[in-house]
Each structure stands twice: as structure tokens, then as C-alpha cells.
């Protein structure tokens, strides 16, 4: 398990290194002192897991994650944080309070190990492809922060991407937060086998389609699993039919 340590305190990183010695499968690939350094290290080293401090000079841990195209597995480490952690949805998150207890660390690592061994690793191709141009797989997760609430969302769980100014509104479970990316940016990175541009405003997840019906002048109307209706433009309806007829 390749781990990147992100903490502004050198001693705190030393402490984590010391604690992680007890886990032979752990390989610490690098250390970062703040978000900017972490961003560069994540790009260069492609760690599977971050041990991430929340309070850092410059951007904090959440802002770092929100700025990443896909979020790696994350275990948060923090000295004391009543509010930030309460805001979290439970999914895919663990956190450790500093000073870290060995048993808690072992449990958090076990959880991360299980996640990494799950469906995600099958598709995460270890091929030496150009990382920047590789499409995102449905198992990749994005970190979403909307006001006080945060989520790690697997792309496979997102039913619909909708344009909203220079932001994009994503629909998953019962939530519809905004992410700071344009629909164009997303479209170029999403897997075209799973995600389809229905019209100028919307991208849909093909695996969340509940119903398809013909609509005016050769266009289509699609109903998603949550009942949301999406009209497919005429031009895209042609492509959609081609896609399905394959």
C-alpha cells in the first residue's frame, strides 16, 4: 500500500512514520508539508492512500481534495476538530486523532486495504499510460464539498451531471451538490462507455437509465432511476441509438 503523508509538522510526520513501521505492507512514498506540495506529489507518485492533516498553511485538507480530479483513499489525521469531522458523511472516510493510537491506526489501515482490494483496483489500470489523459473509471471517486458537508462519491454512483454556470451540479443518492468543474472538462475525462452527453446541459450515467421513450421530432426522453427526466437532443439521439444498437 503506497502512502503519502501530508502534514505541516515535521514531528507529526516523524511520528506517523514511526507508527507505520509496524505495518509491513505499508510503503511510504513521500511526504508533503502543505496542499501545494501534496498536489505535486500526488501527481508524481500516484499514492493509493493519503494520511492527510486537515489544518495546514495555505489550502486545508478539504480544499486540497476538492481540487483533485479524483481523490485517492484518504485517512484524515487531526489534533482536534469538533466541527469539520461532524460535517462528514460516513462514506469512505476514516479519521485519526493525534496523538494516534496504534489500534485505531491498524483499523483505519484495514479499512483502506479492503477498499483498495475492492472493485476499484480491477479497473484501475497499472499500465504506464499518460496519467493526465487516462479516462476516469466508474470506480474513481471525487471529493465533493458543498457548504459544510463533504462526500467521497464514486463516479458510478453519479446519475447526472448538469451544467450550472462554470460549475457542475452532480446528482447522487439524495444529494445535488456543485463541483468546481465545467461540464466540458468532465466530459473529456469521463468514460464514454458509461457516461453520455444527452444535450448541451447534461451528461447522464447510462447505468442509471430506467426508461427510454421517443419524443418530438426523433429525439428521445430518458427517465433516470430517481425519476428525473432528461431530453436527449436530436443530434445526440442519433448517437445514442447508434450506441445502443452496437
Amino acid at each position: 500500500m503506497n502512502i503519502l503523508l501530508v502534514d505541516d509538522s515535521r514531528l507529526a510526520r516523524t511520528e506517523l512514520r514511526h507508527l507505520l513501521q509496524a505495518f509491513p505492507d505499508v510503503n511510504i512514498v513521500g511526504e508533503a508539508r502543505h496542499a501545494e506540495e501534496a498536489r505535486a506529489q500526488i501527481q508524481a507518485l500516484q499514492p493509493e492512500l493519503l494520511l492527510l492533516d486537515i489544518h495546514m498553511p495555505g489550502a486545508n485538507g478539504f480544499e486540497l481534495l476538492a481540487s483533485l480530479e479524483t481523490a485517492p483513499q484518504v485517512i484524515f489525521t487531526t489534533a482536534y476538530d469538533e466541527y469539520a469531522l461532524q460535517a462528514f458523511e460516513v462514506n469512505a472516510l476514516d479519521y485519526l486523532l493525534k496523538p494516534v493510537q496504534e489500534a485505531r491506526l491498524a483499523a483505519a489501515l484495514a479499512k483502506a486495504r479492503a477498499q483498495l482490494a475492492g472493485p476499484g483496483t480491477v479497473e484501475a489500470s497499472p499500465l504506464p499510460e499518460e496519467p493526465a489523459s487516462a479516462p476516469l473509471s466508474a470506480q474513481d471517486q471525487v471529493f465533493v464539498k458543498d457548504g459544510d458537508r463533504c462526500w467521497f462519491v464514486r463516479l458510478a454512483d453519479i446519475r447526472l451531471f448538469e451544467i450550472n454556470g462554470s460549475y457542475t451540479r452532480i446528482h447522487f443518492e439524495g444529494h445535488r451538490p456543485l463541483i468546481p468543474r465545467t461540464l466540458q472538462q468532465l466530459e473529456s475525462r469521463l468514460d464514454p462507455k458509461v457516461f453520455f452527453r444527452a444535450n448541451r446541459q447534461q451528461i447522464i450515467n447510462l447505468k442509471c437509465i430506467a426508461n427510454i421513450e421517443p419524443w418530438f421530432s426523433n429525439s428521445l426522453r430518458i427517465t433516470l432511476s430517481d425519476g428525473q427526466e432528461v431530453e436527449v437532443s436530436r443530434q445526440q439521439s442519433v448517437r445514442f441509438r447508434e450506441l445502443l444498437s452496437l
Partner: protein
Amino acid sequence: MASITTRPRLYWQLQLVSWSLYGLFGGVLVTIFGRFSVYIIPVEVFVTVTLIGLSHLLRQYVRRHGWVRLPVLALLPRLLGAHLLIAILSQVIIGLLVMLLFSLLPHPPRGSMPWTQYLGYALNTFFVMWLWSTIYFGLHYLDNYKQADIDKWKLAAAVQEAEMRGLKAQINPHFMFNGLNNIRALVLENPARARDMITHLSDLLRYSIQLNSTEKVPLARELEIVRHYLELEALQLEERLHYTLAVDPAAHEVLIPPMTLQQLVENAIKHGIAPRPGGGEIHLSAQLDAEGQHLLVTVRNTGRYQPVPGYEGVGLRNARERLQLLFGPAASLRLSNDADPADTVLAELRLPSTSLTTALPRVPALTTAFDEHPAG
């Protein structure tokens, strides 16, 4: 708060009613013991108006020069002078007004008032002014007494509140747990330094737990705490933190509310140094002013002061409240951006210089006992 000092309506009611009664009473006396004449009415009106005017001028003067706060022995000679002046001045004004009135009348009354009569009136006014001052200052002393009582309760309540919030507000838990975590790593790296850090942390904790039992501590003691605090922060920030403390030894004994400087330094780190990847500097200086009457503490740090309107951090507000309760308007705490050098925040604390040694006869044993760290 409704106090006499801040109720101008009551003042004017008292002024008008009592001086009118005084004028009326004078008229009645003259009628009883002398002989009634219609001219008594305008003359008594002159008396009333003149005395309202002059006593009001006295009040303006009293307010401007803060006579209400003077001790009685300093106040009495001043009032003696003021009352004499008013007694004489009032008779001159009334005399002139009466002469003016009579010169306008087609048939002025016969016979003039002898000047000795004015002397009598002056004496009378002199005594009445003493009565006026007794009431005026009496009401103010009553008010101040009540105010002092309220302040005492407020201070007690604030101390209690601080005690209740205890460690939580005083020592930032984030700071404490980071400190413990850093010490844990330091134990492996440099055990001797780790031991020192545990001592710093424990003295800091002890101080913050005990501080509320005393309202003020000598500056030197507070500085010790600031040093502990900075040592511990240096563990977290390492090369990102540079600091200097320049304190005039003459200021060591000055009493200040505990945790005040610690809070200023904590603010400087939290808002100035910690958010910057490159870190920054803190320079604390403390000295007495030229007259030795005030303690001036300045904390300069790298950063920008961007206050949110209507919102002030808990630490700063708490410090201001305590200063206000302990010293009143004599103490001040200001935060500003300093242009030189650029990107510097300047915190200035000013408070009246009081010390154990001025309040009590200098007993060396006492001061050393106070400076000693409480054992165990």
C-alpha cells in the same frame, strides 16, 4: 444603564423646580418681612434664571474636568472657589439686570437697594450653592457606588465564566493535542528536549488552570508563560517561526490580567504565521511610558489584519472585556495593519502601571514567593 449621570431629564427637572422654588421662596420672604411690590416678581425671575445659568455652567465645568472622580479633600477647595465666584458673579448679574429693567421703566421705583443688601444675597447664594453641590455630588457618588458594585459583580461573573470555560477557551485544544503529538515524536528524536517540552506544557496548563483565582499577575510571570507557549509552537512550526521578546526589566513587576499576552501571541500565530507556508516573525516588546504611569506592550507579526465587521474573535473580545472591567477606560487594546515593514499586524496594549511593590511595602520575601512556581 439608567443612572443619574446619564439622565439629563432628571437634571433639568431638578434644576428648574428647585431654583424656581428658591425664587418663589425669596419673593415670599420679602413680602412677609418687607413690603410687597410688583417689581419683586421680575427681580426673582432674574434671580432664578441667573442661578440656573451659573449652576449649569458649574456643572459643565465639573463634567469637563472630571470633578466627580476627585477625592473629597481635593474637591472641597475647588467647590469653595467656585461657589464664591458664583455668589459674587450672580449678584453682579442680577444687579445689572435690575438696573437695566429700572432704566427702561417710565416710573422707576423710588429709593435704591443698598450695596450691603447684595452682600447679604451673595452670602445667601454661597450657602445655597453648597446645598446644590451636596445634592449634585451626592447623587453622583450614589451612582458611582452603585456602578462600582455592578462592576464588581460583572467582574466576578466574567471570572466565573472564564473558569467554567476553563481550558477550552484558554488553551486551544488543537494547540495542546498537536503539542502532545509532537512531543511524542520528539521522545524518539531528542529525549532531553522532549522532557523540556513536557515541562513547558505543564507549566502552561497549570497557569491556565490556576489563573482565575488571581485577577492579575506580574508581567514577568506572564512572559514566562508566553515563552513556554512559543517554545511549544516552535515545535510545530519549526523554521517557519521566528520570534523576539524585548522587555524592559523596569516593567517586570507591572500587574496584568493573566493570559492576555499569551492570547495576543496566540492570535499572531493563528492568524499571521500558521496560515503562511513560509511562516513569519513575531516581535513582542514591553516597556513603561516616559512617566512610568502606563505599561505599553506591542506585538508585531507577519500577516494582514482583516477584521470581519461585527465579528471579533472570542480571545480578543475576552481580553478587551477583562481589561475594561479591571482598568476601565485607562486600558486599551488596538489591532491594526502596520505599514513598516509591509505585511505586519500590530497589536498595542496599554494599561495603567500598578505593581505589587507599589501597592504594598517592598518585602523581598513576598515578591520571590509570588514569582516562584507553585510546587506539585
